[in-house]
């Protein structure tokens, strides 16, 4: 029997992506906390598992995989009873892949990390206005993607929904999602909140993240 271990911090959005995927697949695993805020990811033991020292990192029977997107794709391919969460059909998969990379670059790196890295590392609590604009642009694009469909990559739930909701629920700590302006995004968030595992896999950790952010008393420059 394979033993799965997920290393990470619940507050971390990509860790929550992995948690959502594991929960959706109903696959048992052990969660081992690695507190990146306390630099536990820089220990020699962790560097042996993942030289890039990021979370989430997955251990599957002695093999180490990291990057939440690679982890989610791998988990569905290996443990999924079917391919619904990461379709094998080339056209459908291509759209999921595009959404996953959109999340990596536009949502996570440019939307969130560009704020949190200086905020946590150097205590920069006055955030440049362009970071606010970048988040609004993300909300705009998501609203566009959801036109005519219930999920971010099409008519069914996929790992792209997990990848984006985890970060979106953390971007909200900085910029509210106006329900009047973003009717489709708001409906999509509510749809995902109904998933039976959503509270444990994402909502709880997102609240922790938001508390951390609110404590910094950040403000956007005008």
């Amino acid at each position, binding site marked *: 029997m394979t033993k799965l271990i997920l290393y990470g911090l619940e507050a971390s959005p990509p860790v929550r992506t992995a948690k959502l995927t594991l929960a959706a697949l109903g696959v048992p695993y052990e969660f081992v906390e690695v507190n990146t805020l306390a630099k536990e990811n820089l220990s020699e033991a962790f560097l042996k598992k993942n030289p890039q020292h990021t979370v989430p990192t997955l251990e599957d029977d002695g093999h180490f995989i990291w*990057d939440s997107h690679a982890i989610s*794709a791998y988990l569905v*391919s290996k443990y999924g009873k079917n391919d619904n969460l990461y379709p094998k059909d080339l056209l459908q998969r291509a759209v999921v*892949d*595009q959404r996953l990379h959109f999340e990596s*670059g536009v949502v996570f790196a440019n939307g969130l990390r560009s704020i949190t890295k200086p905020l946590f590392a150097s205590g920069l609590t006055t955030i440049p206005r362009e970071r606010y604009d970048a988040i609004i642009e993300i909300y705009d*694009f998501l609203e566009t993607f959801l036109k005519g469909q219930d999920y971010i990559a099409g008519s069914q739930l996929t790992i792209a929904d997990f990848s984006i909701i985890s970060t979106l629920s953390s971007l909200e700590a900085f910029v509210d999602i106006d329900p009047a302006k973003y009717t489709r995004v708001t409906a999509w968030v509510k749809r995902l909140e109904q998933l039976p595992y959503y509270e444990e896999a994402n909502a709880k950790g997102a609240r922790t993240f938001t508390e951390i952010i609110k404590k910094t008393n950040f403000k956007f420059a005008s």
Partner: protein
Amino acid sequence: MGKVTLYGIDGSPPVRSVLLTLNALGLDFDYKIVNLPAKEQLKPEFLKMNPLHTVPTLDDNGFYLYDSHAINSYLVSKYGKDDSLYPKDLQKRAIVDQRLHYDSSVVTSTGTAITHPLFWENNSEIPQARIDALEGVYKNLNLFLESGDYLAGDSLTIADFHVTAAMTGFVVFLPVDASKYPKLAAWVQRIKELPYYEKANGSPSQQIIEFIKSKNFTIV
């Protein structure tokens, strides 16, 4: 079945990663230039194909796809004679996927932090911290290459194409110190030896390299 059409411009590293993949696959394609400074990507016909209005964008006989990583994975899966450029083996694929997402998030954002003010804000002073971040990327790439001659292991994959295209511009800002990053330096050379390298990346990148140099940037 008609040819695929690639929309893009030579200067763009993600576009060149697709040119590398198309050439590696030996696939015939049409290449249509999209003039980004003239905002051709914001025209309604382009927005219909890609609401994110980015390049590269692919038209495969009416199926539109964007994001270079999704495009390259799709092209190999659909047109590859074998899966070597994007292995089906789950563990090998997981490593390629991780490298691809490292490119999407870290490589791209590190590069954009340097080029965006230079290209679009007429600011030719580059803070040292951004060059240090680029060196951090070189360090990680060198680490990845501990496991094999190519970024994701012993064989060439699309991960090599993405990073090569980005590195082509990066080295103008920060040459690869072979004494510090020997594996990275060796890999850069190895990729240059691919028979289609010059056509797909070498010569299309000339103009952007000249453009960067013409900015007379300084690191402050």
